[in-house]
């Protein structure tokens, strides 16, 4: 009678679980993670009131591009990570080297670094995927935690590449079918899927994943992207992220006594919506691009922010604090950095697509500026205060 025992590395005989496959899938996974990390930094900095590197206002579609790339490469990374982990699964059952304390310590350290990498990688992809559909089955703040774990993931990835560099080089230089780096337990081909076949299936899976979701930000893919979080429809042709009901502004936004306050130092100007509409109006074609990776372009019409700031004789080059009518929420008060406030394309929009803003788009008026994350395009604006 055979006794039940824990599996061993030597129990895995598939030729597909080979460094030849791992290195090739891993390279593309690494590229995806690299793009995700850099575009994630851009997004993080764009949301800081005082970014370490000033975020430019041009091109206006900059954030649409970087955040679209962030979500597309993150989505493509899901099949890549699954196949990568599958290809190295036998290593999970490698027996620790007993006898030498030093070798045991090195083995333990490598195990730990891999554990951190796998945990951080799965965490980033899972939380990012859930966030794209506004699903939050956790208590922590998505934004700050996704950002912190991104540093852990990219750091552990760099350590992993440093450790494995000779193997990676050898595997990528050798032919895909080369067995030089295989485990001794690997048998001869048994007919099923070849290594090339597995790689092609992996690229196909990544391709299907991207095509099925990228329509959120790539307009012409909209009809193909059957799993996209949004169809792109919405009031006035633009989807919304936070409704007036969710923001609890349905009464205050429609109140006839609404006034916008513009303040600088001791000066304050109070304007009704009609008075705003009586000022010089400008029309700008600008995208709304959200952190969740969807974007939509709209034709916005309203007053230039810098014209409003001129009413209180604010000096050029000042940051502006924007306050919304919404009673609470992390984005109730936001900062519009000086370069955005003085950009002529930055509007306090009153209209979208030739009609007054729908309440879900921020009636009576909202901020719309080029190259900004959607959460900072503050809706239902009640106050603009020029910061000293």
């Amino acid at each position, binding site marked *: 009678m055979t006794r039940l025992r824990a599996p061993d590395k030597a129990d895995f005989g598939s030729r597909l679980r080979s460094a030849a496959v791992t290195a090739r899938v891993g390279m593309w996974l690494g590229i995806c993670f690299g793009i995700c990390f850099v575009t994630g930094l851009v997004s993080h900095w764009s949301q800081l009131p005082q970014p370490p590197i000033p975020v430019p206002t041009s091109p206006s579609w900059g954030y649409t591009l970087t955040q679209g790339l962030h979500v597309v490469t993150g989505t493509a990374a899901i099949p890549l990570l699954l196949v990568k982990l599958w290809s190295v699964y036998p290593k999970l059952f490698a027996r620790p080297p007993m006898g030498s304390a030093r070798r045991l310590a090195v083995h333990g350290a490598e195990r730990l670094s891999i554990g951190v990498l796998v945990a951080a990688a799965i965490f980033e992809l899972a939380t990012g995927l859930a966030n794209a559909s506004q699903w939050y*089955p956790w208590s922590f703040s998505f934004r700050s935690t996704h950002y912190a774990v991104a540093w852990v993931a990219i750091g552990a990835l760099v350590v992993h590449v440093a450790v494995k560099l000779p193997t990676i080089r050898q595997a990528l230089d050798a032919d895909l079918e080369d067995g030089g780096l295989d485990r001794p337990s690997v048998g001869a081909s048994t007919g099923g899927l070849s290594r090339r076949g597995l790689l092609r*299936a992996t690229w196909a899976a990544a391709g299907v994943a991207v095509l099925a979701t990228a329509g959120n930000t790539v307009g012409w893919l909209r009809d193909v992207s059957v*799993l996209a979080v949004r169809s792109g429809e919405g009031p006035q042709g633009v989807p919304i992220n936070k409704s007036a009901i969710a923001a609890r502004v349905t009464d205050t936004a429609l109140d006839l006594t609404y006034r916008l306050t513009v303040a600088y130092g001791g000066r304050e100007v109070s304007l009704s919506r009609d008075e705003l509409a009586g000022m010089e109006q400008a029309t700008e074609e600008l995208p709304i691009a959200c952190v969740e990776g969807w974007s939509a372009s709209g034709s916005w019409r309203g007053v230039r922010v810098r014209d409003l700031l001129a009413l209180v004789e604010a000096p050029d080059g000042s940051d502006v604090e924007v306050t919304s009518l919404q009673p609470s929420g992390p984005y109730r008060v936001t900062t519009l950095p000086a370069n955005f406030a003085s950009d002529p394309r930055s509007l306090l929009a009153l209209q979208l697509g030739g009609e007054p803003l729908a309440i879900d788009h921020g009636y009576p008026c909202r901020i719309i500026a080029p190259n900004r994350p959607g959460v900072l395009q503050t809706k239902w604006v009640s106050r603009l205060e020029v910061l000293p």
Partner: protein
Amino acid sequence: MTRVLLGLTGAVAAAYGGLLLLDNGFGDLVDVATWLVAGVLLHDLVLAPLVIVLVVVAARFLPDAWRAPAAAALVVLGSVTLLAIPVLGRFGERADNPTLLDRSYWAGWALIVGLTLLTTALTITVRARSARPGRVTDP
């Protein structure tokens, strides 16, 4: 030398991320740790063994010529189904925002499954026709 520098850079970046995590309160930190560990356990103890069982069963019951195309179909459908979970379950749906999750996701998923199976069936048929004795199949 390059590898040592690379390794140190990575370790510093990871440690910085760890420090950033500590900004969370204790309760949230426990939640973060739970999610970090749960992801690994779900993969290593549930998903990976499930795939192994699936492959063993499929290898026993599928004709030899079907094995490679079926494995390729599993890679595509398995990963796409996994990443479709949030939209299929509509967990983030909100009554006040009809612009979110506004597609028929099960129909979309069924379409992807149908097209993948169709491609798989076509591959098997084409290969069966062009198969010569001794020829190695390569999908």
